[in-house]
């Protein structure tokens, strides 16, 4: 049980990462590839946050006078992930706009067919 408790978050994070990568590697639909990318990104964020976790810790906010500094979880990965999420949205919407453009041009989202039509 202890081992499960230690590694359950990591397992979840890497599970997401692997599923995301596998989707990107295997799927031929462009939007499916982008969905894989977003799952991968969520996994990476989860992993970063769980690295900064402290057992029996508190959130890094001095909201009440009684909160002590030594129990706080690591704020640096949180700050990192905060910006990463926003950038992730920007990247995804850019990729999706490319998808729209590709569909307008080729009439399909299948990467194999797009590759064949390219020349």
């Amino acid at each position: 049980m202890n081992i499960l408790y230690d590694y359950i978050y990591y397992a979840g994070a890497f599970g997401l990462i692997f599923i995301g990568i596998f989707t990107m590697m295997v799927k031929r639909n462009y939007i499916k590839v982008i969905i894989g990318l977003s799952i991968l990104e969520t996994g990476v964020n989860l992993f970063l946050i769980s690295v900064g976790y402290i057992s029996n810790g508190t959130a890094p906010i001095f909201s009440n006078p009684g909160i002590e500094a030594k129990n706080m979880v690591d704020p640096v990965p949180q700050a990192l992930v905060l910006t990463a999420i926003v950038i992730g949205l920007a990247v995804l919407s850019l990729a999706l706009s490319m998808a729209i453009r590709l569909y307008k041009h080729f009439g399909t989202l299948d990467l194999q067919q797009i590759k064949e039509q390219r020349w």
Partner: protein
Amino acid sequence: MSLELLIMFAFGGAFLTYLAGKISSKLRDIFALLCSVALVVIVSSLYKVETTITLYNGFFGMPLSMRLNPMAWFFAIAIVSSSALVVLYSMSYMKHRERTDYYYFMLLLINAAMLAIVLSGDLVSFFISWEIMSWSTFLLISYNRNAALPAGIKYIVMSLIGSMCMLVGIISIYTAFDTITISEIVQHMATATAGYKLFLLIIFSITFGIKNAVVPLHTWLPDAYAESPSPFSAVLSGMLTRMGIFGFLLIMFVMVGAENSLHMGRGFFSYHNILAWLGAITIVIPTFIAMLQNDAKKLLAWHGIGQGGYMIVGIAFGTSLGLAGGIFHTLNHAIYIILLFLSVGAIEYSTNGLRDLNSLGGLFKKMPIAFLGGLLGICGLIGIPLTNGFVSKWLIYKTLILGKAPFLAFATLLGTWGTILSVYKFLHNLYLGQLPQEHQNIKKTPLAMQIPIVILSLTILVFGILPGLPLKSINAMIVSFGFTPLTVSIWGISSETGTLNMINIFSILLVVVAIFWLIFQAARKSTAVDQYDNYAAGAAIPKDKYNYTVEFYAPFYRMATPYLRDIFDMLYQKIARFTEFACDNIRKIYTGYVSDYIIYIILFLALLISAQLKWSVF
């Protein structure tokens, strides 16, 4: 002070010319001419001045400096005066072309870069100027687009290989001696091992060999000369290619030192002997290839390679006589090849870009000045007495004979025979013979094109009769290399084994010519005929085209063709094609399919991880 002024004038003039061209083309032409004339004035005012200035001190703690000594001055005056003449010539030649601002900018930039090369006092500024020169030359070679682009690319690829070799040499010198200033390198060189010196000699020889077109490395030259605009071909062949000779002098006699570079290796397989033999091959083969060319500029281009061989033989032999011959030949070659290119350019200008020897002819009466230039130019090229080529070739023959090198001497003589045969074809097919119908009303040669041709023709005669003028400063250069000085008078040169005195030859020839002329005048039986009459041999002349100069040397051509293929060019082409093929196949891993790229990334990660797990490499 005037050295800074010189560099400032050279580079600033180039940029300002470009800006002036944006205002008006007439202003630009005048400005360019004034700039190049000012450079001539400044350089000639620096005669016999020896000075060093530091331009910039902060280049990684190494000073970038300029220095003036006899060698630098000699090359500098040749560069600036030839470029002034070419700028004057270009004023008419380039008048109705496109992109003339760019042309003048590049021409003056090349001029400035060459000045900076010969004046540079350290290897880094030498390298920078060398690169400026190479790149602007590339841009100007491909000025005419179309066929000129491959020529330019060929040039820049080979030139970059050379530059990279030079960079390797410079970095190794910096790591070995911790300095880049040439005068300090000279002092450190005494402590270096013989192997290191040989390494330096070879690696710099590749650079300068490419620039000077020594035979295995010559393939860029014919295309580049033929495809660039004619005035620039003149600069390219006259001075720019001869920066290679300057480099050879720098590395052999200044940096490594004469006593080292002339005793590198043993017997036949010594460095300077192999270089001399390469020079001999460079003389013979290109000269005979030149004979087969039907393009006037290509013919001259192959001669440009061949004449470079004489200089290499002269300086590789390494006696004061040979060195004087090699350096003097550099100057002479510059004079007559610029003259020849300018006169071909005049024909090109008049006939709207025609330079095929088979379709021209009989232009002698239409363009007398260009004919004069062509005639005196080929006289210099062959080395007929009273022209400047004679003196330098005499010095080289003399060196080879005194140095007991009969095969090399034979090679140089063979080269001269080939030269005579091929330049007769050149002269005849352009100026003599029948004038084709369509060239009856060709454009007149403008004055700005005639002046440089006349000046250069006179210079050929002056340097031929009074070789002492340039030989004095060449002598100073040789002394600065540590050789015994020659006894030079204004008429010629004298040594214990023989004397050359041009005034004697001149007066003898004058007397002989006078006698023969008198005899012919007295016993004159022939009558003057029309230019076209002498072909008919009594038969009626066909109206359209009757030109027996077509396929000159055809039997020789049939005989020699199998042996005269340019095998090095073919080799390089094969290497290039193989590289292209390999790259084309490597390119195929970029499938344009997102999932493949992800698989590559994951594959790389997996390889790293398995390497770490198996062998713990990190």
